[in-house]
């Protein structure tokens, strides 16, 4: 049974977490993510779970660490400055290979920044925001339905790979209300739980920790994680193509700007400009495969981002610099309109003359 309801993006994430069988949520309020902890405080207990407002973000992520060690589905959510505080714990979760689901409702920065939407945490999210060489699986929804579907999936992915999964959204998606179909979650695949700690009853004791006593052990661990990341990179690249097949030019954009860019593409097509869109859905692994058919074909690419140009680096690598890649960006909480993006695309590729 599913029903179409009007919900705030942050609340959609909360509802999806409940549907996914999340039993524990540890968090600390911060705008514009707070509705997640508020919603779960109200409804998670009714589903047999617990919400604990921690002393701070550091406490919250480490509580997640502890709960995940027991094989319990657990989540935390925050916004950019709070995510900075969590990075230490996230690094430890990655090292201990714990299936924790993280949500970052990206606001602006650096510093305290503002509450508006931003994509300024792209590097932090995709390159390992804490110390050490690790990767999170990062999913970037662009509308409420995806907030729901990807939250559901995040729990399965986290367990499948025993790796933290980050849902990277922004203040706009978090606050906006859109219809969403609250689908029932299909049964999760059986996962191996022979690693959890729940008391050494009738078995040998287990230790979940990440200290490497020798460099040899350290390297073995790094190689094991590297192999896992390679596997994820091979299997979990996700993206959406929109009018890309015959495109002369491509926009690459995710999340809020990804959906705005669809309007840009439609407007361009009306003007006779063969513009298409690649919208990365997994930001790590970055969907390099999406660019294979286009890197020898398209005349140019514009990335549209809410930062000083972060994802553009991954796009340049993906096209092996065979295609000129430009950046159009807004910052500080500002969103671009479809008209200004199209004007920029026309300008950088000198397209005014191509109009029909």
């Amino acid at each position, binding site marked *: 049974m599913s029903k*179409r309801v*009007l919900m705030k993006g942050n609340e959609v994430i909360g509802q999806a977490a409940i549907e996914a069988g999340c039993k524990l949520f540890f968090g600390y309020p911060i*705008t*514009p993510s707070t509705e997640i902890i508020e919603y779960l405080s109200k409804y998670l207990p009714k589903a047999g779970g617990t919400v604990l407002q921690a002393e701070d973000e550091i406490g919250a992520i480490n509580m997640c660490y502890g709960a995940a060690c027991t094989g319990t589905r657990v989540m935390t959510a925050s916004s950019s400055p709070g995510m900075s505080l969590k990075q230490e714990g996230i690094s430890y979760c990655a090292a201990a290979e714990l299936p924790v689901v993280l949500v970052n409702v990206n606001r602006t920065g650096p510093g305290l920044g503002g*509450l508006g939407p931003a994509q300024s945490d792209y590097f932090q999210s995709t390159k390992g925001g804490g110390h050490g060489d690790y990767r999170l699986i990062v999913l970037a929804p662009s509308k409420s339905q995806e907030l729901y579907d990807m939250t559901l999936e995040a729990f399965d992915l986290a367990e499948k790979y025993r790796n933290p999964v980050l849902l990277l959204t922004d*203040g*706009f998606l978090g*606050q*906006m*209300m*859109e*219809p969403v179909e609250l689908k029932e979650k299909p049964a999760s695949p059986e996962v191996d739980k022979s690693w959890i700690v729940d008391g050494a009853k009738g078995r040998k004791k287990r230790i979940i920790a990440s200290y490497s006593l020798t460099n040899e052990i350290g390297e073995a661990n790094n190689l094991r994680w590297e192999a896992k990341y390679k596997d994820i990179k091979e299997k979990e690249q996700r993206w959406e193509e929109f009018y890309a097949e015959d495109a002369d030019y491509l926009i690459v954009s995710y999340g*809020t700007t990804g*959906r*705005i*860019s*669809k*309007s*840009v593409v*439609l407007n361009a097509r009306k003007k006779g400009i063969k513009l298409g869109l690649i919208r990365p859905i997994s930001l790590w692994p970055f969907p390099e495969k999406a660019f294979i058919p286009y890197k020898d074909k398209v005349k140019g690419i514009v990335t549209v981002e809410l930062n000083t140009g972060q994802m553009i680096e991954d796009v340049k690598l993906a096209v092996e610099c065979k295609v000129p890649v430009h950046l159009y960006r807004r910052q500080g909480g500002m*969103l*671009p*309109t*479809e*008209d200004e993006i199209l004007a920029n695309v026309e300008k950088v590729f000198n397209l005014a003359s191509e109009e029909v």
Partner: protein
Amino acid sequence: MMDKIVLAGFGGQGVMFMGKIFAVSGMVSDLEVCWIPSYGPEMRGGTANCFVLLSDEEIHSPVIDKADGGIVLNQPSYDKFLDRIKTGGVLVVNTSIVELNETRDDITIIKVQAIEAANELGNPTIANMVCLGALLPHLKLTDYNKVEKAIQEVVGAKRPELLEINLAAIKKGIEITN
């Protein structure tokens, strides 16, 4: 087809409520809907605003540069959003407390003495609904019947006693605009 609506006023004037009614009117008629409230410090005193998009196809860009229609309930909102109505669009102004110090002749400005109208109906808190009614005939995708359903869904369950007065206010607004 799409209606892009901007709504603004003092916190407490029912700006978010108007947004909700428009959004739900879209929900009950199976339209695509985006309701974008202001949040954070904007909500703490001063002027609140929200945007609503109604569409009969998928909404890609939810960003409203220029709106088709708007309602402004106080002076700061008028000053701020007068320029955000597209040429040919409609702006409903609560002239009970807003002075049209600047104006535009490429849009339709509907002046509504909303507080007086609400007082005549016996409830000063429904000035927002009078304005909502005044905008309604200028929208493409929603109408009185859809809004009535929305009000029944939003108000009806919790405060049935307020149902009639809200509907009366909307009808009054429609009369004013016609």
